[in-house]
């Protein structure tokens, strides 16, 4: 399904990448979202805001993308969903550690419902706006 990804850098301490997801996040595009986060981290971003204000739908593969983003921003390697048994045994970090440097901004009601139902909302700071999320990360 259609989804556009826009990445903006907000300099400060830490440098924050704002990844805006517009459309529907599902199995056809979740790897692009992960790749956007990977690129931002490699480029020096140490804080991440997912702006979800224009995301109308998120499939279970979207949950996987959010969790992978959390791992990338912790400096871990996320699992390869296409990998074999070796990929399934390579993880070592705590599963339930939250990432203080990843926040979700303005999720719409259907997205909030999925995050609540699955417990994923416990892993992320959730803010009402993009600006609030950036401020929370940069201590403004």
């Amino acid at each position, binding site marked *: *399904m*259609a989804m556009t990804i826009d990445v903006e850098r907000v300099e400060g301490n830490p440098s924050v990448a704002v990844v805006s997801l517009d459309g*529907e996040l*599902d*199995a*056809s595009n979740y790897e692009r979202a992960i790749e956007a986060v990977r690129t931002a981290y490699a480029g020096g971003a140490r804080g991440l805001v997912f702006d979800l204000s224009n995301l109308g*739908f998120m*499939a*279970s*593969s979207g*949950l*996987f993308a959010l*969790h992978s983003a959390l*791992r990338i921003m912790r400096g871990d390697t*996320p*699992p*390869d*969903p*296409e*990998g*074999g*048994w070796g*990929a*399934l*045994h*390579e*993880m*070592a970090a705590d*599963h*339930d550690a939250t990432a203080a440097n990843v926040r979700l901004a303005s999720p719409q009601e259907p997205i909030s419902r999925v995050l609540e*139902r*699955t*417990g*994923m909302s*416990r*892993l992320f700071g959730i803010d009402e706006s993009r600006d609030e999320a950036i401020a929370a990360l940069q201590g403004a």
Partner: protein
Amino acid sequence: MERAGARWPIDEELRVAQRIQRSLVLLPKVDLEGWEIASDYRPAREIGGDFFDAFPVLGTDPSNRLCVVIADVSGKGISAAMLMAFLRPLVRAAMDHTGDPVEALERTNRILVDERRTGLFVTMLCGVMEPDGAFRFASAGHEMPLLVPADGSPLRAVPGGGPLIGLFGRLDLRQEVVRLDPGDALVLYTDGVTDAARPDGERFGEARLREILEGQHEASAAQLVARVTESVTAFQGSAPAADDLALLVVRRSAPARPSGGPSAAGRRGR
């Protein structure tokens, strides 16, 4: 993989994996007095990560306690399928050992978190159908089951549940209970049903699923499964499936009609 000095093509490996996985996923015939069970499973790719199970609870009395499980492993393809193959007997063993859906999911979670860190996670619903019609279940982030009442009253989603398996050290789930009267059916599904999309991008959605199940209070478990899968397939049209689809319907058998009239089964032509 080498076989007799020759290299096996990956397509052949996948075909073998697909056959093995389908044999693991498909339900053996479960003949348990008092219950009808029907299911369908359609992987989005050659192999998938959804699964379900239905089996009599081991060593319990009365013996017609039926355990049902449905789950959706995050990710697709081989890694999800391998985790599915690992989890399915794990949950079954936990249920055989404890008979308690909450404890079975907690044990499964602990193994996935403490011993087998995979980075993947799983939504799972596990429950026991009691002979008196009570369905005692626990849900780890799974879609809410839908109850289709036999008396024609509105269909309803059965709430309850906690976080999905594989992310947290403890799930702190609660046992939920819903009662099935004779003829009531419980529809368990994975998000491949509601997330199915047609070529213009519109999703099948929960509202459409409810709509097609409304008015189906006399349908058998097999008829309910067929109604849902045919509707999803027709809706999708030429669009490729985005996700695995698993559907499991458990119906408490309707009582036989008084002699002289057609039986409930006869009316439905089963």
